[in-house]
């Protein structure tokens, strides 16, 4: 692809903004479907695909998935049914709960991964909003944390030392917390999703996380050098 982001020539805070936006968009795609959500979905996906396109050949699969999602039409109710069935409660039973603990050794929620996540948030100076009723290892919470980290990176701007520290933090959370379980979770979603949308979305999230991890690794080396 010609219009890949060139890490070296592009302004890094711009890239970070785009990355934050990618996380934001993916998170938005994952919220429970509503009327306004579905009407805005093509717009969000357009944006997402144009951001992702910039991230080089490794995102080819991502872009393809975006296209696929965009082409297909899903009725709101189908998506709601699938969402509920896969992620909340379903018949026969909840199939792919979007919580890290569900994929750890014990069957319990709020297991060690949740506590690990909570510690990471606290270390980054974040607390749970009193109105939220979610566990720390919920997919959206973890994606939101990545956005927070991107924002922090933008705030420190070009002071390379700090920025690379934050990048390190992002890379760490990504590879140690998010990616291990999302890759498993995605498998469950893919095998169980009847509508197809969430299978693709899960694959997309998984792909994006991998892509971002590679990006962070590359730039991490650069900033050290």
């Amino acid at each position: 692809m010609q219009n890949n982001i060139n890490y070296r020539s592009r302004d890094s805070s711009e890239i970070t903004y785009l990355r934050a936006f990618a996380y934001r968009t993916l998170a938005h795609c994952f919220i429970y479907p509503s009327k306004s959500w579905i009407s805005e979905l093509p717009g969000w996906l357009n944006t997402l695909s144009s951001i992702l396109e910039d991230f080089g050949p490794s995102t080819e699969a991502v872009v393809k998935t975006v296209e696929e999602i965009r082409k297909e039409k899903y009725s709101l109710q189908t998506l709601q049914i699938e969402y509920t069935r896969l992620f909340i409660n379903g018949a026969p039973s909840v199939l792919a709960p979007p919580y890290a603990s569900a994929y750890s050794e014990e069957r319990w929620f709020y297991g060690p991964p949740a506590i690990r996540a909570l510690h990471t948030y606290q270390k980054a100076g974040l607390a749970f909003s009193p109105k939220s009723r979610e566990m720390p290892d919920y997919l959206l919470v973890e994606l939101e944390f990545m956005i927070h980290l991107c924002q922090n990176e933008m705030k420190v701007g070009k002071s390379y030392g700090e920025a690379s520290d934050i990048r390190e933090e992002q890379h760490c959370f990504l590879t140690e917390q998010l990616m291990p379980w999302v890759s498993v979770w995605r498998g469950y979603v893919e095998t169980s999703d009847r509508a197809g949308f969430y299978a693709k979305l899960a694959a997309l999230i998984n792909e994006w996380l991998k892509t971002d991890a590679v990006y962070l690794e590359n730039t991490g080396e650069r900033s050290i050098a």
Partner: protein
Amino acid sequence: MGVKDNTLSRRDFLKFSGGLLASSFMLDLDSDLGFLVPSAEAAAKPEKGEKKLYGECGICSMGCAYIAYVQNGRIVRLEGNPKDQIAEGKLCVKGYSSLNILYDPDRLKYPMKRTNPQKGIGVDPKWVKITWDEAIGMVAKKFKEVIAKDGPQAIVIFARGKPHLKHFAKSIGTPNLIIHNSACDVTHDIAWESMVTGEGKGRPFTGDYENSRYILSFGWDGPGKSKNKWGRAINNALEKGAKLVVFDPRLSITASKAHEWIPIKPGTDLAVLLAMIRTIINENLFDQEFISNYTTGFNELKVRVQQYTPEWAEKISDVPAGKIVRIAREFATTKPAVVASHKRDAGGPLYSNSFRTAQCFIIMNTLVGSIDRPGGRILDRKPKLPKEDEFVKYPEYPKGVKERIDGMEKYPLTKKGNFSTVAQGILSKKPYPVKAALIWKYNLPSFPNRLRLEEALKTLDFIAVSDIYPTELTELADVVLPEGTFFEGKGLKERKFHAMYPQMALVEGIKPLYDTKGFKDVLYSILEKMGLKEYVPDKEALKAFSKAKDEALGTTKEEIRSNGGIWTGDKTFKPKTEFGTPSKKIELSPSLLKEKGFDPLPYWIEPKVMPNKEYPYRLIIYRTPWQRMMKTQNIPVLMEIYPENTVTIHSKEAEKLNIKEGDYIWVESTTGKIKVKAHLSEGIRPDCVAIDHGFGHRGKGMTVAFGKGSNEGDLVPDMTIGEMLKNPDPAANSMWNEVVLKIYKA
């Protein structure tokens, strides 16, 4: 947040403007994320170490107060609260493992509605998550429609008889609040109410067994059901030299600790009791002082029991006359002595004569002066608190139809509903059709012959279910209203059922894990949405009520917290000298029964069914220490200990039928048949088989419980109200054990 000023390149801008409105450029987190907020405190003081949280275990009615240890917002372990007179620092196996319920991935998390019009067990309802507003709106709308078209009686509410539920039913005007008492303790309830506590006052659960010197049990297996206070009490009593005698067709855990286990013929405890009462009265072994000061009707009783000689009882019950007489004498002469009882013992809803058996329990305890005396059965000692209705006033309730769908208006003493007759009532549409149901934490296997109820519920237009778990019943629901676990509630709880002195337990609760709501709130919201605001308690009044409660206790929650989570009232035991009956005495020949047209005195009633050639075995239902009804089967560790229920068969009988330990066998009654794993034992009467309750979930949503074991309730017949009325029982009990069976290898 903070990124508005980050400009984008021109190319990017063009790209974005093609896709989204400019306002979306902001990384706006608040609209649908916003779980995390910056907090300097969090960074400075990350959560470490343990926090104590007080609460009350909600697994069974004992309600042990616990201390939960919280790390990182997660409860890591539970201990019994040592200050609580019931827990005494310990919980039971179910309590200890109940954290599995709180953190169970299978739990109901958000309100949901069905989108698949087809209903049935195993049929995907195609749930869709909705908001609480929508959910409550749906229920309210439907209820209003039903009321307008078919009248409020067309709404049936299946729920425990909490005051707010009674209030809700009355407010919408339906007589049909179906409480589980017919399957639980209705016989004891009415026996106590008519003889001791007075109409509508209920019954005590408390027994000062620890200080008894002679404990008689007729099928009572409190220690064997992990009622841990009773287990300790029995252990301590035995250590102090008490004698324990157990009449039970099955060698229960209590019986395993007893001095004597008498494998009595099921359903004949009444005969033995009548003979014992006769012995104690005729040999003048009763407590003269107690009888003359605190009872009425002794002479009538004396006359009545003359016909029931020990020899007569021997013929009926298989218990030798000499043994009956000896135990009666020992019981009357060793003080204090007590007949222990709880719910589903011989005086529970098991046999056609159980009400009379329950009556005899009270008579026995009265004869030896053990009603509200140390070492005996103790009446409630609740803290004296203001009542809600002193603060919250409602307008008069609408006058609706009196007739109930379960026909219970035909029973003057029990008004709590009947699990046995409700299904056939709905199916027959008599006296009127039912259109909608609201169900709170009952599951199909809790009913006799659940298939009939399933069939009945399928005829309804609308079902709303509130529960913690996606039970098989929720698969029939149109709207699911998720409730939180007992770990997620808050408040002050009375130590009620087993308290020797007034105590209150502080319940703190962790932050709810999901979008759940307490059922009380749900009910008030429904009322509000239905336009019945006048029946929703005023917030100010509630505040005043809660303040008045604090004042009555003379303390605050903070103070209770610093005192170890328990408020304790006056501990001294003052035996009661007045009782709740019209005569203020214990009525051995109760006026209430007389008044309502029943025989006031116990008399012998044959069990409804007898083993015959085709069905040679009687069913005995029991409960294991590690399962609580249909509540705890999704706890992995408990299912690991005991993965499925078993049918206990006498080894000699099994040999005859060529059944070996662990074989799967069919157990068949006229109502249904189930496949269960066989367990051979010498500890059961040869003409009985025993099955433990709590298994056979059909709801796949409970992934651990699903498909494990079988539900013995499928063998128990349900009834029409006509059939029920044939049984001369003022309590209309469900007669769980009046079932004969055949068994054969699967």
